[in-house]
C-alpha cells in the first residue's frame, strides 16, 4: 500500500527547503516535535507525524491518548480553547501553519474538518454546503454556487437523496445523512486536507459503512486524516496508521504493517484488544 509514496520519494529531486530540508513531496502536512498543554496537562508529547498526499492516515489509540488533540492542531482548532498551548512545528506544504504569513481562516479552508457529532447548521441543505464557498468568495455567480453545491453533494454521495429538497433544513436529515452533509460542506471549499474526528462514532453500522465507502472514494483527491476508535475501520479505510498512547506517538507506519506486524508491544496489545 505504501509503495507509491516510496516511488515518488525516489523520483523527486526537490530543491532544498528552508523549513524542512528533508522535504518529501508525498507529505502534505508534517508535524515536528509537537507538544500540546491544556493548562498543566501535557496532552501531547513531542509528536512528529506526516499526513501523506492522496492517502488516508488513521490515528488510533485509547481514549485520552491525544489523537484528537493532534488532529485539531492541524487546522489550529485548539487556538480557541482557553489555556491550550501548542509548541513545535506543523507544516502545510512546507509552510508553517503558525507562521505570520498563514491566515488561520485560510488555513481552515485548505484543511477542512469533519466532527465527531454531525453538526449541520440549522439552515437549508443548500446553504449548509454553500456556506464555505460564500464566506471565502469562491463563487461569483449563483450558477457557480449551484454547481459547487451539486458537485460537493455528489462527491459526498448525498446528491440523489437530497436533490429535490435542498431547501429543507439540514438537521432534518438522518444521522448518517447529516454526517455526509457535513463532509459535503467540508469539501465544498476544495480543501487540500480533510481531518475527520471520529466521524462515525455516533452512527449505526449501515451509516458507518456508507461513510467508510465515501472515505475510500475520496482518498486520492484529498489528504485525509481520520481519528477512530474502531480498529476495523482503521484497517479498512487507511493506508497509514499512527498509534497513540498517553500523549505519546508510539508507532506509525503503513496500516498493514501496524496491524499485522507491530514493532511495539503496546501497539499489538491495543490492536488485539487487551486494553482500549
Amino acid at each position: 500500500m505504501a509503495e507509491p509514496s516510496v516511488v515518488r520519494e525516489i523520483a523527486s529531486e526537490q530543491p532544498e527547503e528552508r523549513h524542512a530540508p528533508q522535504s518529501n513531496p508525498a507529505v502534505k502536512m508534517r508535524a515536528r516535535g509537537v507538544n500540546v498543554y491544556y493548562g498543566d496537562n501535557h496532552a501531547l508529547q513531542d509528536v512528529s507525524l506526516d499526513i501523506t498526499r492522496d492517502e488516508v492516515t488513521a490515528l488510533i489509540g485509547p481514549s485520552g491518548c491525544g489523537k484528537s488533540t493532534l488532529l485539531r492542531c492541524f487546522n489550529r482548532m485548539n487556538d480557541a480553547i482557553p489555556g491550550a498551548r501548542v509548541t513545535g512545528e506543523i507544516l502545510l506544504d512546507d509552510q508553517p501553519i503558525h507562521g505570520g504569513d498563514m491566515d488561520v481562516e485560510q488555513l481552515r479552508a485548505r484543511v477542512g474538518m469533519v466532527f465527531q457529532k454531525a453538526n449541520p447548521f440549522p439552515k437549508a441543505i443548500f446553504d449548509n454546503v454553500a456556506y464555505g464557498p460564500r464566506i471565502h468568495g469562491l463563487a461569483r455567480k449563483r450558477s457557480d454556487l449551484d454547481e459547487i453545491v451539486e458537485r460537493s453533494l455528489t462527491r459526498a454521495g448525498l446528491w440523489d437523496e437530497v436533490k429535490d429538497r435542498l431547501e429543507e433544513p439540514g438537521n432534518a436529515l438522518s444521522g448518517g445523512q447529516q454526517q455526509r452533509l457535513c463532509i459535503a460542506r467540508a469539501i465544498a471549499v476544495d480543501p487540500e486536507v480533510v481531518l475527520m474526528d471520529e466521524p462515525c462514532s455516533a452512527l449505526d453500522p449501515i451509516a458507518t459503512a456508507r461513510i467508510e465507502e465515501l472515505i475510500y472514494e475520496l482518498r486520492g483527491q484529498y489528504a485525509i486524516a481520520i481519528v477512530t476508535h474502531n480498529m476495523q475501520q482503521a484497517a479498512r479505510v487507511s493506508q497509514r496508521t499512527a498509534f497513540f498512547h498517553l500523549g505519546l506517538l508510539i508507532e506509525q507506519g503503513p496500516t498493514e504493517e501496524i496491524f499485522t506486524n507491530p514493532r511495539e508491544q503496546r501497539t499489538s496489545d491495543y490492536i488485539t484488544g487487551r486494553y482500549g
Partner: protein
Amino acid sequence: MIDPNPGARWASREMQDHLRRRHRAERRFRRAGAIAIGLALVGLATLLASIAANGWSAFRTTEIRLDVAFDPALFEGAADAPPGEREAMLAGADYAALVRNALRALFPAVEGHQEVRQLTALVSAGAREQLRDALAADPSLIGATRTFWLTADDEVDLYQKGRISREVAESDRGLSDAQLAWIDALDASGRMRSAFATGFLTSGDSREPERAGIWGAVVGSFLTLVVTLSLVFPLGVSAAVYLEEFARKNRLTDLIEVNINNLAAVPSIVFGLLGLAVFLGFFELPRSAPLVGGLTLALMTLPTVIITGRVAIQAVPPSIREAARGLGASPLQVVLHHVLPLAMPGILTGTIIGMARALGETAPLLMIGMVAFVVDVPHGIRDAATALPVQIFLWADSPERAFVEKTSGAILVLLGFLVAMNGTAIWLRRRFEKRW
C-alpha cells in the same frame, strides 16, 4: 444462594409501610404545589377583578343632550372679518354663554347668579371646546340651532354611575339638591345618556376628571420606550456578544460580569438620581422629556438585557461555532451568521421583558421631572411629557373622586400594554426558535 421466595421480602409489613410513607410524601408535595398555584391564581383574579370593577366605568362617560342656538349676537363681526382673523374671532367667542343659554331654555324657572352657576356646572367645561370645534368645522352654524351631546360634569357622571348617593347630606356631596332635581328632570326627558369615553383614550391630562385622558401619557411612554429601545438593544447585544464571544476570561471580565449582575439589582430610583445628576445636571437636557426618561430607563434596563443576551448566546450549541470555525469563518462571521440568529429569540424575549419593566417603572421618572402635570400630548422626545405609570400615580394622588375610576382605567390600559408586549415576546420566541 437463591432466595426461595423473592416476593416475600417486598411483601413484608416493614416494606409496605415504607412504600406507603413514600406515596404519602409524594401526594403531600403535589398538594402543596397545587395549593400554591391556586393561591397565586386567586390573588391574580382578585387584583384584576377589583381593578376592572373600578376601572371599566372610566371608559364610559355621561353626556347631556342640549339644543344649542348659535346666537349671531355672540359672533358679532366674525362673519365680516377677513379670512385670516375670522378663525381667531370664532375661537375667542363666548361659548360658555351658548351652553348657559341652552340650559336656561330648558329650565326657565332658574334665576339668580348662584342658581345659574349651579345649573351650568352640570355640563363640563370641555363642552365649550366641543362647540368651538363644531363651529370651526362648519361656520354656517351661526344663527342656526343644533342638537349636541355635551359631556357632563364629573360629579354628574359619578351620580349617573351610582357612585354618589342621595342619602348623603347635601353639604357632603358634590351635587346640591337643586342640581339633583335638574339631573332627574334631564334624565326623565331622555336628555342624559352614557356613551363611550373617546376622550379618555384620545386626550391629555386635565384638572377636570371628565376631560382627563391618557393619550398624553401613552405617547409619553411610547417615546420614552423608543429612546430606551434604540439604546438598549444595540448596546446590550454588542456587550453580550463581546463578553461571550470575544473577551478573554480574566480578572477584568470577571469584575465586569459581577458589576453587571449587581447593576441589575440596583433599585430603580438610584438610576433616577443618576439620570438627574448626569443628564439634567451635567448635560442640561430638557427636564420632563422622554429623551431623558428614555436614557435613564436605558441605564436601568441595560444590565438585564446584557444578562439575558449572554444566557441566550451561551445556549447556542458549541458544535455550531466549531462547524463554522472549521470551515474558516472569522470570529465575526461565526457571530453574525450563526450565533446571533440562533440566539435572537432569546435576546428578543429578554429585551421585551426588559422593556416591559421599563414601561412599568415610575420611580426614576419622578426624579427627572416626568411627574409634571402635562396637558398637551407630546410631539417629540424633547417635549415635556409624562408616562403611563406616572399618570396613574398622579391621578391616584388627585383629590377629585372621579379620578379613582380614571386611575383604575389607566391601570387597565397599562396592563393591556404589558400583556401585549409579553405576548409579543412569546410569539417571537415561537416564531424564530430553531431546533438543533
